[in-house]
């Protein structure tokens, strides 16, 4: 079937390569997104535990902040 339509536009087999390339690109994109997403979760935890200055958070995290070298007061 494919051989018979080999000369038809979009049926020369290259479209398979295109699909593979698109998939690879999508995979690369999603890998990058995943890394960014996970890094953002880590950065949020770091900010809340180490830097946020709300009185409650500051008091609760106080000793850890001093003991981990964060600028505290």
């Amino acid at each position: 079937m494919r051989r018979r339509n080999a000369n038809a536009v979009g049926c020369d087999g290259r479209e398979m390569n295109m699909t593979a390339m698109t998939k690879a690109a999508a995979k690369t994109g999603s890998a990058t997104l995943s890394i960014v997403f996970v890094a953002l979760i880590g950065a949020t935890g770091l900010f809340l535990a180490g830097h946020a200055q709300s009185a409650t958070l500051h008091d609760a995290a106080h000793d850890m902040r001093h003991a981990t070298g964060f600028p505290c007061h």
Partner: protein
Amino acid sequence: MIKRMLAGGIIAGFAAGLLAAVLHFAFVQNLILLGEQYETGALVHFEHQVEAQAATHDHAGDEAVAGHDHGAAGADNTDDFQRNALTVLFTTLIYASYGILLVAGFSLAEHFGRTVSAGEGVLWGLSGFAAFQLAPAMGLPPELPGSVAADLGARQAWWLGTVLATGVGLALLGYGRTALTAALGGALLAAPHAIGAPRLDQFYGIAPPELAAEFAARVLGVGFVVWGALGWLAGRLWSRTPA
């Protein structure tokens, strides 16, 4: 992929955080409590010693010990427990955050075709220590309660800039292939210190310098050990979990 990263980072970070909490109570917490006594004025090191020397040496020792005991006995036990529980909680939370960031780094390295094993994880962990603790400490030494430092916002900004510059600089040195990336890495490592951390024009600290020095050294020592363990464990989990 997200699950692999989060699970590995959180497990390694939580375990490292527990180790950090043990070392914290073994080496650091008593110095924080002592520093707070100088901060609140319960202890005054300089004048006290002058007065004490005018009396007798033994007397000075007794008074210092008495002052210390008074503070510890005067504090409510429930408050102590809550305070220490929160310290354990936030120590595990901060190391879980470090763990997650570390594993995001592993994933980025893998993306560029570099595998990270337990051994390489230790190098990553020690680089994390350098980026998050050692390099910032060169401009902003770990603060004993009772130390006085420059404006908080400015210090936090310099801290963050130093962490980013040191982390990226070390990554370029470790994984870059050309002389240019090495030079760029070196420049990034040096930049925060060339700019300089926010400082006060004068020293206002009320805690004894010996105490502050011991505190800073112990904080860095504990951080070194815990980051090494964090990197090893995170690398081990990472290399043993299928992608």
